[in-house]
């Protein structure tokens, strides 16, 4: 399948930084998927020049997030295009030439030739397959400042077409970005019903017991999250100024305590993950005969 040439590949500074950090902190090589969105934007050259050309349309892709895993594990089956917007994939391998490898070309080919994964950029009727390939390497000799190299390609017609990667940051020079902005925050799906007098009683009758139990568990979880922050407390804010301050301070303290517990939890689980990683590493070394 021959794709249209992508005119611009953009990535936010934060995403690129996080990608590079993931690559450099990994024990070995890593690879993964790149997600984001694509849009056709009609640039309108605001020019006083009388002969300025007609507005040209540009196919712009923006990488917003990624999924990475060690490269000895195969990439999971890509998610269907309806739920997320898969733009392509990346491969991060240390101290290698900045050229696509045997594996890179095979993986890019299979990814871009799958019609189920094609996406439709905004404002257009084109079909774009996940053909972006981002290659991340490190220089052959360790250097203090120059620590990473990367190159973006579009896999088109069986070959890698090098593309420049523009980094998006915040500031006036990135104003044109807002044209193609699309919020893509995904809230977790939780069927929390409003338990109250106006809940539809008839529906509940139809629901099976298992469904009810499920709902109950979700509700409990939701209640746990909102513990100490009941809706009733909002009314207390309204009574008097003194009560308002006291209530506010109380809420704030509770929030701090919650964050504190949360960060402790994260710390503990991270320590456990690290412990397991080390154990895995020792097992791997034993399997590889390195001990």
């Amino acid at each position, binding site marked *: 399948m021959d794709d249209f040439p992508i005119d611009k590949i953009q990535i936010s500074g934060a995403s690129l930084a996080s990608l590079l950090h993931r690559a450099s902190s990994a*024990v*070995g*090589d890593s690879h993964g998927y790149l997600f984001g969105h694509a849009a056709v934007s009609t640039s309108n050259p605001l020019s006083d020049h009388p002969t300025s050309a007609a507005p040209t349309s540009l196919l712009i892709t923006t990488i917003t997030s990624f999924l990475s895993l*060690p*490269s*000895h594990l195969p990439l999971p089956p890509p998610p269907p295009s309806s739920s997320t917007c898969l733009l392509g994939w990346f491969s991060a*391998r*240390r*101290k*290698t*030439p900045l*050229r*696509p*490898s*045997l*594996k*890179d*070309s*095979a993986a890019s*080919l*299979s990814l871009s*030739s*799958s019609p189920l994964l094609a996406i439709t950029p905004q404002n257009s009727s084109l079909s774009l397959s996940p053909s972006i390939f981002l290659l991340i390497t490190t220089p*052959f000799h360790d250097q203090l400042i120059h620590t990473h190299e990367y190159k973006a390609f579009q896999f088109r017609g*069986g*070959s*890698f077409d090098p593309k420049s990667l523009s980094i998006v940051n915040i500031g006036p020079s990135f104003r044109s970005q807002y044209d193609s902005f699309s919020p893509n925050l995904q809230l977790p799906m939780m069927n929390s019903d409003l338990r109250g007098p106006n809940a539809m009683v008839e529906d509940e009758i139809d629901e099976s017991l298992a469904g009810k139990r499920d709902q109950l568990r979700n509700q409990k979880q939701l209640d746990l999250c909102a513990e100490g922050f009941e809706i009733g407390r909002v009314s207390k804010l309204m009574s008097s100024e003194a009560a308002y301050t006291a209530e506010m301070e109380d809420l704030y303290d509770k929030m701090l305590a919650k964050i504190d517990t949360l960060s402790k939890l994260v710390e503990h689980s991270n320590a456990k993950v690290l412990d397991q990683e080390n154990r895995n*590493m020792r097992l*791997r070394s034993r*399997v*590889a*005969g*390195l001990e």
Partner: protein
Amino acid sequence: MAIDTVPPLISAQINYLIGHCPFSVKVEQMWSGCKNPNLLDRFTLVIPYCLDHVKWDVIFNAMYPLAAPDVIFGPEDEGFQPYASGTGQPSKNSLANWNSRDPSRLYSLIVELRDAYMAFQRRRISEIDDERVKFEFSTMISREGIEMYMSLGTDKPEEVKFAVPLLDIDLNKLVAGCTWRHPQKVYLQVIFPVGKKYSSVPPPPRLKLISSPELKALLSTEDFKLPTWVDGMCTAEYLPNLEQMLNTQIKDAVSSIEIRRKFIQSLAPHLGRPIEADPVFCRRATFLCSSGLFTFQVHCALSLQFPKQQPALVLQSSQHFNAHGAPVKSPTLSEYPWSPRWNSSEKADRIFDFLADEALNFKKNCNQLNQQ
């Protein structure tokens, strides 16, 4: 852990590859790509192709040595995607179902990739829009073992190179007792420029006779005078004459081994049995001699032009050493009375006479050196 370790699974693959490969493959450098810089898991393979080399980087993963390797090809070969058949079907190849416990896997992968590379170059050359190259390609493609290469440089002109194996005989069997591991061949290298327009007759291609490196002990292709290329000729026409000439040359080269052997044997009555000699090609022999109390070795090197060219002699003292502890040697002596028309015993007589005089000079020099 020792410094610079190659994980055993990876080193087993490399050793098998080097030990069993039908062409002489070399590991140029090894380096590490993981957090522990002492674990070497990537290396460059130098693979002979079309009388030159291609360099491929093989990327293993020391952290997960059970995983299959990845290969990065040269910068000129970005279009080379052997396992991207374009049909969408995963092609059967050596990387599929990689088993790190089987040390022959890397070997089969490299052999398979080299074959694919050969097919890739052929396809690339068959697509060139150049009448002459098209014709040469169609007449030469059927020759067994032919390799071709197209150089695409931005700074150099586009050229097509053919490496044509000559003479369908097994050279390894010609020389008794030779220890060549790889099959030896003589190739004609033919280089055609691409896409040039000529007003009249195209100029002859660049021709060069090249032998596999180990064959140099028997035959010198540099001294071989190539037949002239007649205007308007093609390579297929040029080859029969060349092969005939080469065949005679090789027969001469094989029979010259016997001449050299006889000569070394004829030296024995004068100088004693050689303490060391090359028994296969008879290109060199070392004798232990003495002149009075002074003992020294005579290194005798016979060129391929022997007996036209006289043997080069080097004397080495067994009693004098220089400041670095190495034995004192004379410069190479190749100017002494000699005639190719003398019979072997006379040649030996004359050398003995010359050595008897030269030994005294050499002894004097050695003594002077030691006194300084």
